[in-house]
């Protein structure tokens, strides 16, 4: 599998480590009144979609950047790759 890194171009998947659902970027605020419930959902409740899925990948054997990879879990086709840093900034984090 080839991941098209936004800065470095196509790189072999062997250079990357998979973490999981990209929603992990959206960590709840510990000071929210509903923080307990939000953290329960954040930590334990995952969607398991059949089809398009946004995931966090780490370029461990490369530039050490985190990526958000949009992948089709049925075909393994990679539809989009973004720097997680940019995604987080766009979310106001």
């Amino acid at each position, binding site marked *: 599998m080839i991941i098209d890194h936004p*800065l*470095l171009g196509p*790189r*072999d998947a062997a*250079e990357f480590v998979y973490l999981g659902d990209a929603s992990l970027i959206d960590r709840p605020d510990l000071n929210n009144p509903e923080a307990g419930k939000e953290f329960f959902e954040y930590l334990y409740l995952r969607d398991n979609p059949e089809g398009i899925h946004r995931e966090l990948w780490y370029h461990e*054997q*490369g*530039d050490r*950047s985190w990526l958000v990879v949009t992948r089709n879990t049925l075909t393994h086709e990679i539809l989009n790759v973004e*720097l997680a840093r940019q995604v987080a900034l766009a979310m106001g984090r």
Partner: protein
Amino acid sequence: MWKSAHPIFMILTGVDSVADYKLEPFPFLWGRERYFGNNYLDIVSTQAIVSIAIPRGSEKDFSSEFTNAFGTYLPEPGHSVFSKNREFLFLWMSPDQIFALFERDGLYPELTVREKLGDTGYITDQTDNWCQIRLTGQDIVQAMERICPLDLNQFPLGKCARTVMEHLSSVLVRESDEGFLLLSPSSSAQSFLEAIEQSFLNTGDY
């Protein structure tokens, strides 16, 4: 690896004995060289590696200071760039880190960079953490493509990349049409060297 190149002397000072340690740098894989036909493998032993990390929020100030100090711009992602006087080679390592490679002068190469940049970046000596192997010759791409996941036929002069070869972290720099500089962690230097040598033997009649 650093080894004492001299005997350790004991100096008698009055009634006390004080050890006078005479230490000199002793690079990894020092002295190793090998020909594979017309291709030459050599260990780079006099080149310092200094890491420069860019503080978050100071990117513009750092870029300006860097250009003033070295007469060049920061390397683009996946590329290297020489300083204006060509004494320093800078490698892009990540969005907020570059490596500076230059001829070592003394035991504290980070001071050489700090004299230029001041306190605008986080500067650490990495020389001891990497082995450096230089390959020159016509058959390098053929030998390396067996173990390197990068397309080295699309790896022009000045390009650099961090990747993994034989499960070992490595950095490649294209120094010339027929020349590559390879870096790999010093803790597995011997294994890395053997992987390179074996790849030559597997791909040619040497």
